[in-house]
């Protein structure tokens, strides 16, 4: 996966709260392999149900502005694949479900949690705005407004380098081995007997 530091794109509003992963990608699409591309599955049923859907109107958008508790529900990482394959680089919302936020970072998608999300949604409505994201300085510029966002150092490193955790963890192989050996000798009951 390629890392990124700066992104220029277009923001679009999905004015809904609690957008769960069952909506982001209905279960029936999840047997596809990633190579087939997940972009077409993104919010599939919601999109079809509503004629004038913002994502259909602005297919080139790459920054999604949504409501609180985005990505709640199942741990299905396919929800992130659908967003990424549809061209999204970031989602802005008041809050994210924990598993979703972790999955996002592992796939190069930036979750920006900010209380300003509501205001942005109100201002933008059905329009789009130019979005500029600088991961290095943790700043999102949207039209003329500047939003400083929080991002852990780990998430920043991973997004900028395109790393997932396996790359980071390899450095600790020795620690892991000795932990395992200690656990095995101190807590013999942990290893299943059958």
């Amino acid at each position, binding site marked *: 996966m390629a890392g990124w530091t700066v992104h220029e794109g277009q923001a679009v509003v999905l004015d809904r709260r609690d957008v769960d992963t069952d909506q982001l990608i209905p279960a029936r699409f999840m047997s596809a392999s990633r190579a087939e591309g997940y972009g077409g599955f993104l919010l599939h*049923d919601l999109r079809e149900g509503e004629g004038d859907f913002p994502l259909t109107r602005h297919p080139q958008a790459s920054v999604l502005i949504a409501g609180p508790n985005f990505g709640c529900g199942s741990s299905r990482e396919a929800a992130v694949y659908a967003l990424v394959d549809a061209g999204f680089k970031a989602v802005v919302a008041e809050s994210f479900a924990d598993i979703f936020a972790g999955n996002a970072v592992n796939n190069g998608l930036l979750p920006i949690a900010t209380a300003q999300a509501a205001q942005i949604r109100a201002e933008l409505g059905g329009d789009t705005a130019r979005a500029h994201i600088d991961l290095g300085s943790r700043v999102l510029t949207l039209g003329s407004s500047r939003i400083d966002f929080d991002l852990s*150092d780990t998430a920043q490193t991973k997004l900028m380098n395109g790393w997932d955790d396996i790359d980071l963890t390899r450095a600790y192989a020795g620690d892991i081995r000795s932990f395992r050996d200690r656990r095995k000798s101190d807590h*013999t009951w942990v290893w299943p007997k059958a």
Partner: protein
Amino acid sequence: MGTGDCTVPGAGLMQTLLDKLWAAHEIRAENGQSLLWVDRHLVHEGSHHAFARLADRKMAVAQPELTFGVADHYAPTRQRDSIADPKVQVMLDRLDANCRRHGIRLFGLGDPRQGIVHVIGPEQGLTLPGLMINCGDSHTSTHGAFGALAFGIGATQVAHVLATQTLWQAKPRAMRIRFDGRAGPAVTAKDMALHWISRLGVGGAAGHAVEYAGEAVRALSMEARMTLCNLSIEGGARFGMIAPDQVTFDYVAGRPFAPEGADWDRALQMWQTLQSDAGAVFDIEARFRMEDVAPTVTWGTTPDQALPIGSCLPDPAKLDATQAEAARDALDYMGLQPGRPLEGTPVDQVFLGSCTNGRIEDLRLAAAVLRGRRARVPGLVSPGSMLVKQQAEAEGLDRVFRDAGLEWTASGCSMCVGMNGDLVAPGQRCASSTNRNFRGRQGRDARTHLMSPVMVAAAAVTGTLTDARPLLEGRI
């Protein structure tokens, strides 16, 4: 709700159950993240993305003896010998091939122990107090009922566990939810969960590990504790846990993969230390009284949109702007009239099963309501595991369900998620013992009402959302 009692001298030295479990698994801590050791890793058909990542990197599974495969999400509940849907067959074959290639023990379709991952882990004694347990499924919090550190992970993390047997994780904050008093008739762990989630909201426990405590939690059976912990994620918590006690130890003893002899003694010694110290400080404390908990049903499209069965549906006109919009949307999707009583709403079908409520006690309670009665609407009963199915049949419960007119099938996730083709048709209303009432969860445009198994049985008998209490009276 208030903060913890901070007046206890030396409170800083007191540890929560979360602290103890975390410390026992921490290999390293760096930049606010801990590298944690995984004791049990459970994989299912949906883990195919993770295996593909491993294959891309040409990596092996680090600890196959701590990894277990289960066919559940796509498991057909009927006609297992000739699977009609080629997609389902592909998913099952892929899991089989991946487990074979990496030397992972698989509870596959033909195995008499097959079932839903969160049912068979405990059933087989793979789930033990003090372990860290992970699975690419958000309801992994179920296993926390044993005093284990158990949480759901995404595909990239599944690949990470496969490759390293570890996970990077930021430690959540600690939250304690207490239930005081005793449960009334027909009030179950499902109602306790829907109650707290409806009070605190779907994000109410986000970023927190929930420990359940209080008299009513102690009084729960192991199976009911699993139901309570299972639903933690629906309130935003990835972790739900209960300190192990004699109920836990009695449940675990003698299970196929559980420790024995000297190992058992050593384990027990350790397990007995797994409680939050008196005076340990929680970031959030919430307290509920059992007298306020009634049989509860969801009316909307998120699990916090739930009410006691005797209530009226919300009226968006009387809510504040943000809530009103969500309520209007939900009522519209659900095809419900604002302000009308919840009870008496006609349902089209029922579903009994899932990792939330597919265990033997759930089936017994539902059967108590259904015995000698006919269901007015069609329905599906899918036991949580094939061993639960066997047990239910030995007790004659299958007869009760069949005589009532419900379909009795094999075990799998089934209509909880519909991946195997067990779907609720568009516009149909289903009384369901599952865990998510999201739009489209049980099938496109399906309308889901979450409730306990005993309430599902009552809905079957009357064909409407019904208070189960009168129907259960004198029967248990």
